[in-house]
């Protein structure tokens, strides 16, 4: 399959940090796949995602998105990406509708089209009755669902999800995962997903990469990784590769 994202020999060391946050990582994400990026806390996932989004420049290596780089085509690269941060990146004093209208306009979507997309997405995720309520009145699961919609209003080619189901109830988690699966299968949207829910990752992701201490430990198709490591689940593979030592720093 054709690659959407190619990361080659990527390294990033923060000033004053003792070692690189990302160390010579190379990953390929194919178009239309759901790619799980797993690793313990402080492994370098957030730094890698930040560079992929164009927030930081790497010290070494290159990232191409649909054969374009942030250095030469920043605007186009950013337009191809949708980001759903781990935090609820919404304005709590605004309603869901106001938040999504603002963020959609920031992506340059025309008002009529934007209204249509917001209405449709809120309806799919069961929020149509709460459209004009302030975000501060929402439950954790409702906030997560609006947070997700905000990242895909502009129909990105690559949707980056940083722990999209953390802290939500089972019903909301189910709704979010089903919605993402539909986006992937029906629209062919490529998804990059990070999570500490390894069972969820195994169920959801077609491909998985595990990084630890800034280095890529392994990557491949989910089922292939399980069988190659002679394990029963991704969780076993993960523990086998990363060990059970705490990563407190």
């Amino acid at each position, binding site marked *: 399959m054709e690659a959407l994202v190619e990361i080659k020999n990527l390294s990033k060391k*923060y*000033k004053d940090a003792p070692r690189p946050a990302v160390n010579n990582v190379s990953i390929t994400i194919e178009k239309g796949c759901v790619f799980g990026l797993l690793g313990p806390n402080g492994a370098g996932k957030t730094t890698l995602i*930040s560079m992929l*989004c*164009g*927030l*930081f420049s790497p010290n070494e290596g290159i990232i191409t998105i649909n054969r374009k780089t942030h250095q030469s085509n*920043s*605007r*186009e690269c*950013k*337009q191809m*990406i949708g*980001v759903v*941060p*781990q*935090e*609820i*990146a*919404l*304005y*709590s*004093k*605004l309603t869901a509708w*106001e938040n999504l*209208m*603002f*963020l959609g*306009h*920031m*992506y*340059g979507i025309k008002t009529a089209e934007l209204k249509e997309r917001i209405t449709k997405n809120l309806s799919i995720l069961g929020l149509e009755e709460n459209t004009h309520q*302030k975000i501060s009145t929402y439950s954790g699961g409702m906030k997560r669902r609006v947070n997700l919609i*905000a*990242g895909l209003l502009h129909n990105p080619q690559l949707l980056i999800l940083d722990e999209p189901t953390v802290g939500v109830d089972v019903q909301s988690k189910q709704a979010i995962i089903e919605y993402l699966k539909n986006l992937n299968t029906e629209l062919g949207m490529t998804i990059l997903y990070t999570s500490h829910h390894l069972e969820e990752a195994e169920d959801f992701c077609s491909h998985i990469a595990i990084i630890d201490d800034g280095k890529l430990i392994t990557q491949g198709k989910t089922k292939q990784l399980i069988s190659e490591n002679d394990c029963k689940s991704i969780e076993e593979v993960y523990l086998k590769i990363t060990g059970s030592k705490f990563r407190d720093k």
Partner: protein
Amino acid sequence: MKLLYSIYKEYKVLTRDRAGLAITFIMPTVLILIITLIQDTTFRSVSEASVPLLIVDRDNDSLASSLEKSLAGSKFFVITKKNITNEQAKNEVAHGSYLIGIVIPENTSKNLRKKSTQRISKLLNSFTGDTITKDEPIDTNRLQLQLFFDPITKLSFKTTISNSISSIISQIEMQSMATSLNQKMQENFPYASPQKVETAPLVITTEEYASYNNSTIIPNSVQHNVPAWTLFAMFFICIPLAGNIIKEREDGSAFRLLTMPGSYMIVILGKMLTYISVSLIQFGLMLCVGLYILPLMGLPQLNVGDNVLLLFLVAFSAGLAATGFGLLVGTISNSHDQASLFGAVFVIILAAIGGIWVPTFVMPEIMKQISVISPLNWGLEAFYGIFLRNFGLKEIYPELIRLWFFFLATLSTSFLYQKYVRMR
């Protein structure tokens, strides 16, 4: 469209933030009302008829009435006459009921006239060789008026008042001497018709405020406090603005916005335009307080001068500087608490230095020199220029340039800090 939506978003966020609105609009209104009322007496004491003065008149003759007339004519005093003892008068002044007390002893006018006559006789007799024999013996001590001052009276003010009273008394003495001279001349030359000696001062001074276009607006607590506390409030918006920036950073909104194509600059621009508009609304509101609310409380009405457009240009420039400062505080602070504390303390220091609390013209020389580093002082000087001196753009442009430079410096520092420190 992006910019409009960004401004609309900021407007919505701001108008739903009750604490932010209170800081932005209610705080300066309350400050202006309270501080203006408190400072009104201080400003009046140097500018208007408000010095309470007690006269104990046991003379009941021409000196007392001339003195009272002259003091009243100076429009400097609110005069009360009482028939009490010296000790009682002293007590009333000591308790602060009056700032000054004057006791005029019995027969002062009579003795003054006699003394004047004696002096004139002595002078004329020295020409003719006669001796004074028919004059009644009079008290040879100098005539004495007793002045009491409230102990809180500043030395400079006490000296000014003493000099004024001495000057009035000198004139009365002079008139008395002239009257005696006229009488003696009449007695000595009964068939002549000499002209009366004129006692009007030979040297007079003219006074006016050295302002442009013959403006004679006198500084008062309203003319100082309205622009001063409006500027303070404008700079205080650094707290809600910095809080807004930090919240976006903490809740991931800044991260999301930074991943959007070219949007974050528009978001920042939207914030700036919104908060500059807030500054202008604050300014308009405070002008209304000065024009319509303060007079209802017995305070003078704010005189806005002749150039309202220029006033709004100064307000816009101060708003720019305040917004730049808010962006800087929001960028370099790591938490909302840090921004609130740092922003508030820094604005209070800049206000104190800049003459917001105590006008720079009553500050010691060293503080006057230090005050020029405060952007609040630049704004205040520009407002003073327009309000009190009828300055135009040509005169106040150095203050405007300083405010714009401050804005550019804080804005550049924010972007450099964001780029090279936060993103390193």
